[in-house]
């Protein structure tokens, strides 16, 4: 349970700033709804996706938000499951952000479907339990329910809530690990695609969720506390700062391992050369977007001696980590589809169905609007929730979160 001296309170901003922010998110929500109905009416031909690149920009936004969702819960889990007291005041916000991120991500996925109206068939029992997608539907619903319970256990004053706080926290943490394994397995199970067929994608997605979830948590925490004129001390921020660096490096380790192990197998040389070899959009995005901007730069910002306790540097590191993760997902998911499917190894193939050629993809405005809809939905949910319920500690000053800190 949270530290006794921590007081939580609703956000009391009523001014133009608060409603302006909501209105700003509302614009993107409206844009997403227009995009959905336009695509629903015309069909997917108005998108940049096609029969070669079947998953596009909306899927990158969706996977990003879903992966970040389970990671955002980590902050709470570290407090509950591992008993680190300094993280406990952050538990409520962590749970809220996790739920909102997941809802945002799922909304994009559902709105992008060719036949969203057929989703009801799943509720009627049309579920194929051999499909990791079907499992994910259950994992996502369960995650929302468990984190909801977890929030209740943190926020309720009842004795039963206090008693259940730890077991529910442990369950939510376990569930989130399984959930991200499921998300990573979506790609790991694609045996025919040279870019995806790797079991390491499941643990890699787990560690990616750690870094993306924490990055988003830091961004929301710092922005929310600044805009509501609440205090956050260096103790909390520095804990999160160095944890972020560990997670960023964890992702790098698994990503490097994935490529190195792929390079052992001759059948993967083609796709590895395509992604790592340079000279195309995806390899540039990998080296500049993920490695340089999304990994080396944030780690540099975190460990630079001259930027110790520098909040702008931390915010920049978190934003860059998120952008880098987005780039990595783009390279994995879209780059993996752009590389031609191998029908006949060691042969050149061509056809009217674009066999043997690197597939191009330019996302349309509609896809971007759908993606931003998910982000706006997540941010709007958090913005409304912190005003309605007591998610945010009134202060996260050093004296509050860690009175014994020197």
């Amino acid at each position, binding site marked *: 349970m949270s530290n006794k001296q921590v007081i939580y309170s609703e956000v009391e901003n009523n001014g133009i700033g608060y409603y302006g922010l909501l209105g700003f998110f509302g614009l993107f929500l409206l844009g997403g709804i227009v995009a959905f109905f336009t695509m629903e009416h015309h069909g997917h031909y108005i998108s940049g996706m096609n*029969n070669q690149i079947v998953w596009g920009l909306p899927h990158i936004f969706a996977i990003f938000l879903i992966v970040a969702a389970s990671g955002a819960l980590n902050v709470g889990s570290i407090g509950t499951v591992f008993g680190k007291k300094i993280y406990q005041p952050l538990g409520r916000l962590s749970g809220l952000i996790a739920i909102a991120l997941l809802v945002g991500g799922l909304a994009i996925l559902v709105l992008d479907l060719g036949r969203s109206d057929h989703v009801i068939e799943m509720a009627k029992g049309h579920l194929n339990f051999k*499909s990791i997608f079907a499992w994910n539907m259950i994992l996502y619903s369960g995650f929302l329910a468990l984190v909801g319970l977890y929030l209740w256990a943190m926020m309720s004053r009842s004795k039963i809530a206090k008693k259940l706080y730890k077991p529910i926290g442990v369950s939510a943490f376990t569930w989130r690990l399984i959930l991200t394994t499921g998300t990573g397995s979506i790609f790991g199970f694609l045996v025919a695609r040279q870019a995806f067929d790797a079991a390491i994608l499941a643990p890699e997605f787990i560690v990616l969720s750690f870094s993306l979830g924490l990055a988003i948590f830091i961004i929301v925490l710092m922005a929310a506390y600044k805009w509501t004129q609440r205090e956050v001390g260096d103790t909390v921020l520095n804990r999160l700062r160095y944890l972020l660096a560990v997670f960023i490096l964890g992702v790098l380790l698994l990503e490097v391992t994935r490529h190195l192990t792929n390079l052992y197998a001759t059948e993967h040389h083609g796709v590895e050369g395509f992604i790592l070899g340079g000279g195309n959009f995806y390899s540039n995005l990998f080296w500049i977007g993920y490695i340089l901007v999304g990994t080396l730069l944030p780690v540099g910002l975190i460990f630079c001696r001259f930027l110790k306790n520098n909040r702008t540097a931390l915010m920049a590191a978190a934003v860059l980590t998120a952008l880098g993760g987005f780039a990595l997902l783009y390279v994995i998911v879209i780059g993996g589809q752009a590389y031609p499917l191998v029908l006949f190894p060691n042969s050149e193939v061509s056809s*009217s169905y674009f066999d043997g050629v690197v597939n191009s993809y330019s996302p349309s405005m509609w896809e971007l609007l759908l993606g931003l809809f998910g982000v706006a939905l997540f941010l709007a949910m958090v913005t409304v929730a912190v005003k309605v319920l007591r998610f945010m500690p009134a202060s996260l000053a050093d004296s509050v979160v860690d009175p014994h800190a020197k």
Partner: protein
Amino acid sequence: MNNTNNIDAYRRKFLMGVAGTATAITIAPGLLLRQAGAKAPGDEISNKNRWGMLIDIDRLPNGGQTVVDACQQEHGWGHEEESNDKQKAQWVRTVHVKEKLTGHEFDLPVMCQHCETAPCADVCPTGASFRRKDGVVLVNKHICIGCRYCMMACPYKARSLVHEALFDQKPHSPRGKGTVESCTMCVHRIDKGQLPACVEASNGAIIFGDLNDENSEISQALKAKGGKQIRADLGLNTGVRYQGI
């Protein structure tokens, strides 16, 4: 009291209506299918048969383009007006292959290979992609949500999403905007004892038949000369085999 009686009467009427509709829904498909001359599912479609095709690429007319045209005419795909070339459906295409080391070249038609362990059916969240007992892999358009996971999973790129609304479809080959489709092995024909359209147009280069029947022409031909699978390394035990590749 009167009101209560009325409500009871409404309830009874409603329940009878529901029961009637349910009965009609249960019986109608059987009746309609029989009227259309198809075999009712579970009735005559059984795992005793495994339908397959053996394609001799050296005997294919016009490098296989003739069978592609026949399929297109039979099912009406590829005429989507709004979709660009990368978005248009292609249930079957001819692939030109040139082996880098030897320079050996050949053309072959590639379509759904009707795998025994179909990756598309494995990954489909709703079960819309499924394998019939007789080995034909199909999509149930009524429960396909258009997630395209099957397209990601297919090793043969044999599937297409319909990217736009369609009009004037062939009654025997229903298609739908936002759903995924692929070669049906012309189930509407084989269920009536006819040959698939591509087989008819192949001038004898494609043998269609029952792989489970060791006396069938296809089994005899496979036994005599063998037949290769594309990406045999995946172990999918495809229903479509090739000679000459």
